[in-house]
């Protein structure tokens, strides 16, 4: 077809598709972070560790309970979500009135504890987890070979992201949540149990991270480091999208995945840093992020 800077169009489309797939992980994770920050004003550094916990739960379910991938997709987010709720009740609820930095320090410390504990027991090379039999194999699209599992990842992430956005922005429950964040006292006066809402929201954000972890388990290594590598990039995505904006996190996640994919084709050595370069530029031009509201 056509050639662009020495790369054939076939190779280019293949890389764009890969970028989209990676972008779906960024989108899922940054969605959880954006929900937690937007609703709770907590910078949840434990997000990467909770992503890792989701993958490990899937591994344990397979290894010790014989429950496969489809069970894990439902059970793991619930289990890790519950641990998230415990964390919120035990630690985070005391920090809402304080500076953001305390929440950041606490969650960062928790992340180090989780990762260190798992690394102590499981090492760092990772544990095997295979693609579920129904999703193995792939389609030859002509310009590339697309594994079925990766196609599923894009489709499912998109569905989850859009339904979350819909619930928060367009339903009554979502409007209670948004109101409770802006003015908790007034909302409480209306008889709505605000602390319980906040707890459940944190649990939901954590469950999203765990869901991303389960989806990552078959293709990336199930290792204690998997979250640490990803979390910094996800934070950059959330900052670029705007810290409180749900749609911003989703759009930026997919968009940056594609840009990173293109960088891997034209200048692979920079693929680790391109997202941060974009973040620096965006912060200079629009400090609140692309979709964020200036507070």
């Amino acid at each position, binding site marked *: 077809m056509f050639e662009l800077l020495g790369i*054939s169009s*076939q*190779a280019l489309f*293949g*890389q764009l598709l*890969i*970028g989209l*797939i*990676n972008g779906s992980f960024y989108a899922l994770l940054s969605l959880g972070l954006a929900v937690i920050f937007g609703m709770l004003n907590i910078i949840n550094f434990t997000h990467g560790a909770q992503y890792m916990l989701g993958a490990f739960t899937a591994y344990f379910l397979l290894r010790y309970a014989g429950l496969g991938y489809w069970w894990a997709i439902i059970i793991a987010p619930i289990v890790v979500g519950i641990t998230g709720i415990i964390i919120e009740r035990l630690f985070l609820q005391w920090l809402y009135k304080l500076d953001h930095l305390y929440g950041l320090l606490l969650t960062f410390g928790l992340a180090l504890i989780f990762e260190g504990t798992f*690394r102590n*027991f499981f*090492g*760092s*090379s*990772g*544990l*095997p987890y*295979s*693609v579920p039999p129904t999703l193995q194999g*792939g389609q030859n699209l002509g310009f*590339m*070979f697309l*594994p079925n*599992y*990766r196609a599923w990842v894009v489709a499912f992430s998109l569905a989850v992201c859009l339904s979350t956005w819909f619930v928060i922005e367009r339903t009554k429950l979502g409007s209670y949540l948004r109101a409770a964040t802006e003015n908790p006292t007034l909302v409480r006066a209306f008889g709505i149990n605000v602390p319980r809402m906040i707890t459940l929201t944190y649990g939901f954000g954590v469950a999203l991270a765990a869901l991303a972890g389960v989806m990552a388990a078959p*293709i*990336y*290594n199930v*290792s204690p*480091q*998997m979250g640490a*590598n*990803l979390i910094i990039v996800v934070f950059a995505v959330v900052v670029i999208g705007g810290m409180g904006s749900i749609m911003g996190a989703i759009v930026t996640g997919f968009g940056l995945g594609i840009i990173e*994919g293109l960088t*891997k*084709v034209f200048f*692979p*050595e920079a*693929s*680790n840093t391109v997202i941060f370069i974009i973040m620096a530029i965006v912060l200079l031009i629009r400090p609140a992020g692309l979709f964020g509201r200036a507070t």
Partner: protein
Amino acid sequence: MKRLFSLTALAVVFGCGCAQAQYTDGTIKIGVMNDMSGTYSDLSGQGSVIAARMAVEDFGAAAKGMKVEIVGADHQNKPDVGSNVVRTWIDVDKVDVIVDVPTSSVALAVNEIVRDKNKVFLVSGAAASDLTGPKCTPNTIHWTYDTWALANGTGKAIVKTGGDTWFFLTADYAFGHALERDTAAVVEKNGGKVLGKVRHPFPGTDFSSFLLQAQASKAKIIGLANAGADTINSIKQASEFGITQGGQNLAALLAFITDVHALGLQTAQGLIMTEAWYWDLNDANREFAKKFAPQDRGVHPTMVHAGVYSAVTHYLKAVEALKSDADGKAVVAKMKEMPTDDKLFGKGVVRADGRKIHPMYLFEVKKPAESKGPWDYYKLRATIPADEAFRPLADGGCPLVKS
């Protein structure tokens, strides 16, 4: 008066007759530095500290009246962190020898520091053959393996069986570059062609984009010039994208038994790799593995761990013979003068350029049906004799070698 004086003189003479060994600080301090928490922590990590401890015990240091202390540190695969640790160790903690140090960029930095401070550097984990080439020093011995030996083993074997077009997936730092350079040289020397290469950031997570480029090149062999978790992920994702079904083969240029364990035999079967040591090769190795594994979460020793054991053993022998550990150059010269002999590597020798010589082995990963249990992963395909396994002394470009 005169009699008293002569008697006293006699006593002093006899008193000084037996020379006491003078170790700096009274202790021989061994510093084991490697990646304790990241990509390379399973193949080296805490296991290397365990191996060093076992070496000291088996040497019988306590019985010989030698006080030996072992300290460990994490360099996190960063040259600046590694350099700081080594400087503090040498200046403040009086460490006499640095052992292991995987991650070639860190090893090359430590190489310079140890030479400037005249201590000893025994490299087991790092691979870059530059350590016995242009960057060789009189204070460093490269013990276990290097990129040239890997290229010569795996690269040559694969080209000879028909894999004559290559595409490299390289970790973008010193080790990856060295391995790619040495393997490309071997491929071209044996009649093959390098069709292209792509460099991925180190450490990486997702290799799908790079694998896609490798697929598009239509090279018969995709050479993975990376290690540890990077290699594991590359192989996993390659099988996902149907690369082997499409007729291309992967060459894991540096793979350890811990990688195969993480991949599982189903994915890893058929992989060909070159290693310097395997726990199931003979009885001495098996006995070592049996003692080592319970101390390291059941993980069986890799060639890096065995190299640490062997290097520490030989170091202690040299220090015992010299009765001193103060002068790094002198200790290394003694280590080069004495032939090596330990229960893991058998008899060997350390060359003038600091290269330890021993046979290398070409292994193939067993099929799941062929394995009798966990860690029973390799079958031996060939033994490369010691005099062929490493780069010839004259070819290295090491300033210590007089041509």
